[in-house]
């Protein structure tokens, strides 16, 4: 057992730190977030070509670096720290994962090398206007046709949905309900019948879109591996995405703590540095506890994710994915919100100005808390696993 980053992982961490400190400054974030696209094309090119980050956990046979989910988590932590505006999360933590988990051999071969090379962005759309993150959220429908499938319906809250080039979408067989009848399709965003609209969001650093499918016709090759396991595959994809979000949140939780503590060492009130007030110190201690526990939650879940994606992963750890993901997402959502909110309080009046960065983190904390389910949603999932088994009372 060794639950510390390896030397190689530490190196990845350091190079991510250096790169992002350079390209994702406050000014750069503010510029990118005010565009509809939501990111700086040039920075994205550098991420793809110089850092080769989209390739990080794509297997080598598909042109990737073949590293694991822990390495990905290391990057995400730093991206969260620097509020990086980019289609990385949607392309890699949704798109690549979906292809790895549910892609046909053909689809993997078609898309993964392009993503690895930085030639393709992608996203996953599954939630409809009801805004649910569980199987009931899948509201779009599909019908089998002679030529393939006909897709109809609306998706909302789709990360980078207005810019992604490859769409992976969930739809259900007409008339099906809940976890039954869910299938995944991979298709170009340019297919006829697809319309997409940017949804301006409170957190400007992470773009969302609405996507409408009006009689979108795809051929059989668009269907991903589903058979009867569409929801089960989609669940795993969602859980891996939750781990990824949690990693970003953990980076944000650490950063808001660090910013707040730095400020307390310079700001004076009533003739004393505010760092010397015990109320401030104790709140900072609580924030540090949350950041540290968040770190443990994320790295454990990332180790589990690693096994899930591995050729021959540890069966026990693989079974742990739903719970590990829910624990990480629940804890990190609360931790980031707690730290970002207290960060504003530490900064006092300037904390709620546009000029200082506190609000950027605070808004990111809220948007990531909501996305893919908040703590109470995930605790209920955990409770189901704990309490509703072995014939619990009804």
């Amino acid at each position, binding site marked *: 057992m060794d639950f510390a980053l390896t030397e190689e992982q530490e190196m990845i961490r350091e190079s991510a730190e250096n790169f992002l400190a350079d390209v994702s400054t406050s000014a750069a974030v503010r510029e990118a977030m005010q565009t509809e696209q939501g990111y700086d094309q040039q920075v994205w090119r550098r991420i793809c070509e110089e850092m080769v980050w989209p390739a990080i956990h794509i297997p080598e046979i598909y042109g990737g670096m073949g590293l694991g989910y822990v390495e990905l988590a290391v990057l995400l932590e730093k991206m969260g720290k620097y509020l990086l505006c980019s289609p990385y999360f949607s392309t890699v933590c949704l798109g690549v994962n979906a292809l790895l988990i549910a892609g046909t051999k053909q689809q993997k071969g078609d898309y993964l090398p392009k993503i690895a090379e930085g030639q393709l962005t992608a996203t996953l759309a599954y939630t409809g206007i009801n805004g649910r993150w569980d199987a009931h959220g899948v509201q779009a429908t599909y019908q089998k046709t002679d030529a393939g499938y006909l897709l109809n319906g609306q998706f*909302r809250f789709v990360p980078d949905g207005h810019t992604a080039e490859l769409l992976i979408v969930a739809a259900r067989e007409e008339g099906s309900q809940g976890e039954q009848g869910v299938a995944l399709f991979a298709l170009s965003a340019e297919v006829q019948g697809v319309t997409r609209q940017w949804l*301006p969001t409170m957190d400007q650093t992470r773009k*969302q879109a609405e996507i409408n499918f009006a009689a979108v016709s795809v051929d059989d090759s668009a269907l991903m591996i589903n058979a009867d396991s569409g929801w089960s595959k989609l669940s795993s994809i969602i859980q891996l995405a939750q781990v990824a979000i949690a990693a970003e949140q953990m980076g944000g939780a650490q950063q808001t703590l660090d910013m707040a503590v730095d400020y307390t060492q310079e700001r004076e009130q009533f003739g004393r540095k505010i760092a010397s*007030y015990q*109320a401030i110190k104790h709140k900072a201690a609580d924030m540090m506890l949350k950041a540290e526990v968040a770190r443990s939650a994320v790295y454990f879940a990332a180790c589990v994710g690693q096994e899930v994606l591995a050729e021959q992963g540890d069966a026990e750890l693989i079974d742990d994915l739903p719970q590990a993901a829910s624990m990480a997402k629940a804890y990190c959502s609360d931790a980031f919100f707690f730290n970002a*909110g207290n960060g*504003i*309080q530490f900064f006092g*009046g300037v904390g709620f100005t546009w000029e200082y960065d506190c609000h950027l983190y605070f808004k990111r904390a809220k948007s990531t808390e909501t996305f893919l389910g*908040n703590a109470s949603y995930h605790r209920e999932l955990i409770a189901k696993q704990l309490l509703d088994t072995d014939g619990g009372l009804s």
Partner: protein
Amino acid sequence: MKLQFSAEDELFRAEFSAWLADNLTGEFEVIRYRGGPGDEHMYPSERHQWEKKMAAGGWTCIGWPKAYGGKDASIEQQVIFHEEYARVGGPGRMGHIGEGLTGPTIIAYGSEEQKQKYLPGILDGTELWCQGYSEPSAGSDLAAVKTKAVLDEGLNKWRISGQKVWTSLAHESDWCFVVARTDPQSQRHKGLGFFLVKMDQPGVEVRPIEQLTGTSEFNEVFFDEAVAEDILGKPGEGWTIAMALLGFERGVSTLGQQMLFQNELDTIVHVAKDNGASQDPALRQRIAEAHTGLRLMRYNAMRMLSDPTSGDLDKSALVYKLHWASWHRNLGKLAMDVLGPESEICASGPYELTRLQSMYLFTRSDTIYGGTNQVQRNIIAERGLGMPREAKG
């Protein structure tokens, strides 16, 4: 103990409520529910018109003594006034600094001449006031005043130089009251003066502060040898006057504030019933808790107002700010969680927030301005419980 209002008070309620029904209509329809905290920058000209309408109806400054044009309204009637006003979504009062702070302060500390000069403009809604308290480096530490006042012997008036911050409606105001240091050698709450300064003059510059909402409700105000029209009281009495003024701020208007909170909570309950969040057990608990917190805030305020020593820092008053600020901050979060994923979506691009989003973001300032939660807890412990004061650096 008696929870009901007297028949006479209920008559007063009916009268004001009828007046509002007749007058807060037509051109003023657009400003209903607007201009409150987080929204103070909206519709300034319509709201200024509304001030004059209120004045024409005799509904400004009702708590002032009759001698100065008020109605000498009882505490109960002032409570009713604020409740009814908020109940119908009366717009944020642009005259509230003048009516609630400057006026009572001038009545208490001003010369007869000053009263004649300043009170009528407040009463008739023509002259608006803003406040110059906080300074950038001071924060919750009001005594850390660096703004200077120097007597211009030629003019026989004081000139003000320095910077104030968190001044709302500074752009729209005719006057600003300013706490400034008259004795350059003095420290903290000694050697301060309380000045009345005309905004429209070369030495005054207003710069909006952009807030996390992307809008600007607060301003910085820069004074560069600006002429103060008057000083209230004597040089050196500034702290006493400023503290008295803060005392006027508390009290009856809190029940009106609560009515605004009630409007917000009602909206949230409505959303929850509409989108199904009302069936989420965790949200049900939080909605019930918010509802309870608000009702208990009301009963606490009633106790505070019923206390014969009201105005002093009795116990129910001491905890009041901490209570409402923390409650409201939680309400903001609750609003977003009830909305679910829709909470992220703006009213329109590029960054037009919905009312609930604005409210949510703005509540983060509730626990900061007017004394942070930390400062409130110090005050409660020290004044309410007799615990030792924090060491000054």
